[in-house]
């Protein structure tokens, strides 16, 4: 009986064998199992939210891209240094002034390094700063409304690249010249021969004080030798009070830098004691120098209208006269990034032409300064000895190391541009423990909180400079390619490719909840302080003042008030002050005027924005809502009648009620 049963079941055996073989087949296909595993890790189900915000600089689009991580979804773009026709930023009367500079209105900028505000060395979700490289500026973006709230120009600077990095309590945000420029006592002799570079060109490092409300002002600048200052990071923990700036072109070349600035074995990291410098400033040391710069800010007291002020002078500290504010750390081969590990003990340089990553010790640097263990000086700045400040060198770090970020387990991650990989190494013993290829040629990289004292070491984003075949081709020009890498385990794992707008230089990441809790959903109508607001339809009107016509208009689903206007004449300058009366989340209205030579307005609930229009010929011109606001959006339109200059059509308006 038992025997019979057993034999009956024998048929199962081949089935099991076959099944096992099939399973083996699946396991054998490493790609399949690893990509489904990766897909699980980045999948954010419909209706679910990402764990982190990623803020990727838009580079030459002058904007800041906002992404969800780990999904890589592009969720928003914040206009910063470039006009944005999409919502009228830089076109509307309320926002135009944000792009004012000492060179006049500059409609474009090259956005580089975003940096989140910090409290106690940790990202706090209040603001994000970003620098403009071309016409030196730093912007502050409020993360309550994802809008640029302030832009300050940096005087006596060119190529504002080593910027915008914050100190651990956002006391300061720093900036430095990538391109040195002619600088003298009274800034009177700027017209010099370029080959007088060595004698006349100087660099500056600027410290911008940030008030509790976020207001920025340039507290002081430090006069520096005429090198190129490249990147920066502030010290933290034991090194709090210091900031570190890489420099290259210590050769002081002014032409063909790719050869002429690559000669020296070592360039410098400038270690700046900003606390000491700030004390000098408090004592009234240094001197006021010409330094005309413009500060633009949103005036929240007056309707959220951007205003500009011009500041003529700036306080400049000269390290030849004021001791102990700058020291040079010799660092191999044109260092690019300088990154401070979360403990604040180590200063890591990405010597882009170097075969090792040098790791300086802050403790050794401090004792070398104390014992005045110098090998010389440059423009009054003591140069420390490489060997006496070195913690160690990371061997075999890949070719072209650029930038380093950190996790919360004592590891550093460095991008190698030329060998197109990310190298993971142990900060204490400087040994490489893992490496992963990226596609292709990473510049910056980002770990949420990865340059703060509290990294969230779960994901790493590689910001690659070269895209080639990673996406469907889009002609010669294409988006850059970012890659999400899981760094939670011992081995790095590539999870996701996603495209990024413009050219992300640096990026920042932050736990979503830190930002979400500050979110505004709309502006309260009763808090609208715009001088040209109309907070109810009863307040709408059209007024003529010479050839200026002011239309005080409202929008609510689904009509404009007024929507019929007559009595406008050729040669008039018409201001449409449009207030969105809605008080609900995500109900913007748009305003577009036929033939307007600027852009549309995209008006958030409770907000007032102004578009100007100068009609050039007689006729009837329609305007309409551009944002599909409701089922009757297509009905949301109106007409303006424009009569010849000498016509006597009286001013009239209304909704025909």
């Amino acid at each position, binding site marked *: 009986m038992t025997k019979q049963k057993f034999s009956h079941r024998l048929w199962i055996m081949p089935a099991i064998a076959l099944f096992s073989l099939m399973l083996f087949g699946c396991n054998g296909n490493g790609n399949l199992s690893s990509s489904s595993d990766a897909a699980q890790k980045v999948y954010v189900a419909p209706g679910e939210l990402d764990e982190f915000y990623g803020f990727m600089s838009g580079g030459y689009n002058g904007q800041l891209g906002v992404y969800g991580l780990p999904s890589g979804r592009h969720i928003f773009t914040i206009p910063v240094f470039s006009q944005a026709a999409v919502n009228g930023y830089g076109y509307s009367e309320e926002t135009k002034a944000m792009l004012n500079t000492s060179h006049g209105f500059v409609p474009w900028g090259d956005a580089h390094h975003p940096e989140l505000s910090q409290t106690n060395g940790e990202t706090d979700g209040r603001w994000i700063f970003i620098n403009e490289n071309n016409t030196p500026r730093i912007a502050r973006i409020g993360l309550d409304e994802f809008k640029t709230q302030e832009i300050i120009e940096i005087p006596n600077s060119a190529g504002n690249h080593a910027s915008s990095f914050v100190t651990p309590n956002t006391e300061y945000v720093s900036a430095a010249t990538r391109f040195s420029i002619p600088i003298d006592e009274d800034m009177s002799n700027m017209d010099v021969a370029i080959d007088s570079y060595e004698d006349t060109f100087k660099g500056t490092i600027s410290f911008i004080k940030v008030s509790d409300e976020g207001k920025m002002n340039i507290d002081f600048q430090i006069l520096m030798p005429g090198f190129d200052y490249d990147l920066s990071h502030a010290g933290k923990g034991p090194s709090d009070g210091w900031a570190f700036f890489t420099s290259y072109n210590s050769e002081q070349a002014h032409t063909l830098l790719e050869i002429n600035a690559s000669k020296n074995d070592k360039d410098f990291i400038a270690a700046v004691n900003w606390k000491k410098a700030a004390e000098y400033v408090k004592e009234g040391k240094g001197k006021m120098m010409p330094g005309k710069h413009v500060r633009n800010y949103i005036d929240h007291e007056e309707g959220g209208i951007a205003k500009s002020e011009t500041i003529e002078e700036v306080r400049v500290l000269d390290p030849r006269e004021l001791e102990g504010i700058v020291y040079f750390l010799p660092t191999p081969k044109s260092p690019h990034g300088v990154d401070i590990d979360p403990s604040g003990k180590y200063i890591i340089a990405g010597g882009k032409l170097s075969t090792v990553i040098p790791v300086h010790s802050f403790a050794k640097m401090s004792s070398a300064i104390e014992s005045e263990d110098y090998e010389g000086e440059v423009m009054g700045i003591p140069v420390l000895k490489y060997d006496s400040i070195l913690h160690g060198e990371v061997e075999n770090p890949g070719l072209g190391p650029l930038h380093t970020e950190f996790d919360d387990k004592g590891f550093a991650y460095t991008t190698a541009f030329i060998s197109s990989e990310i190298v993971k190494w142990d900060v204490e013993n400087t040994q490489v423990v893992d490496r992963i290829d990226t596609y292709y040629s990473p510049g910056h990289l980002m770990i949420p909180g990865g340059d703060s004292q509290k990294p969230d070491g779960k994901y790493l984003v590689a910001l690659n400079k070269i895209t080639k075949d990673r996406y469907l081709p889009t002609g010669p020009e294409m988006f850059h390619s970012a890659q999400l890498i899981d760094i939670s385990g011992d081995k790095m794992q590539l999870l996701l490719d996603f495209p990024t707008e413009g050219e992300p230089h640096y990026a920042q990441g932050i736990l979503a909840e830190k930002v979400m809790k500050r979110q505004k959903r709309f502006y309260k109508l009763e808090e609208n302080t715009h001088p040209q607001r109309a907070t109810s339809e009863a307040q709408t009107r059209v007024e003529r003042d010479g050839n200026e016509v002011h239309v005080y208009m409202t929008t*609510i*689903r*689904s009509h404009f008030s007024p929507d019929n206007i007559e009595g406008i004449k050729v040669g008039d300058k018409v201001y449409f002050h449009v207030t969105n009366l*809605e*008080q*609900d989340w995500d109900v913007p209205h748009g305003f577009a005027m036929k033939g307007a030579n600027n852009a549309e307005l995209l008006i958030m609930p409770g907000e007032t924005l102004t578009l100007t229009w100068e009609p050039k010929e007689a006729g009837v011109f329609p305007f309409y809502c551009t944002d599909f606001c*409701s*089922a*009757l959006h297509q*009905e949301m339109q109106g007409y303006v009648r424009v009569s010849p200059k000498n016509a006597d059509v009286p001013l009239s308006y209304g909704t025909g009620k």
Partner: protein
Amino acid sequence: MKISHRVWMALAALMLIGVYFVPIWSISMEAPQYPEGIGMNITVNNIEGKSENDLKNINGLNHYIGMKPIEPESIPELTIMPYIFGFLILSGLVIAATGKRTWILYWLGFFVIVAIAGLVDFYIWGYDYGHNLNPDAPIKVPGMTYQPPLLGSKQLLNINATSLPHIGFYIALISMGIAGFTWWKSGDEE
């Protein structure tokens, strides 16, 4: 009436003070466009949005289908109701003080009539809002009316409206229950 019964009656009257502080009725609405919901609470003297601007936004939506805007200041019931509850509290306390048992019945009778009248009024109000539509409304669905349910849920185009008593209503019910119980128990004395 025994002292303890008078205390119970006083409690039934005094707990009605709570009605002034919490909503009596709730109408909540769900729609795809309102993932967090939108709705209004009816209190003793007001109709207010469940969250800021809800009433304004409900009125904004209602104008498409031609419903009149809900304007609490133009609804006379909301000015009368506080006095009705004031009368119930005072008269309940008087009954507790004087200990006249049969008066509890009159008190309860008045209360129940007021409650029924309130619900009937609410129904008529809902009927009027839902049926008396502006003929110029942009959205006209043949045969469609928008009367909110008196109790329970009802699908109105894209919106699922749910009408339910709120805490104030339950306070009133408990007050009635305590008064009724007091009347019943105090009958043992005789």
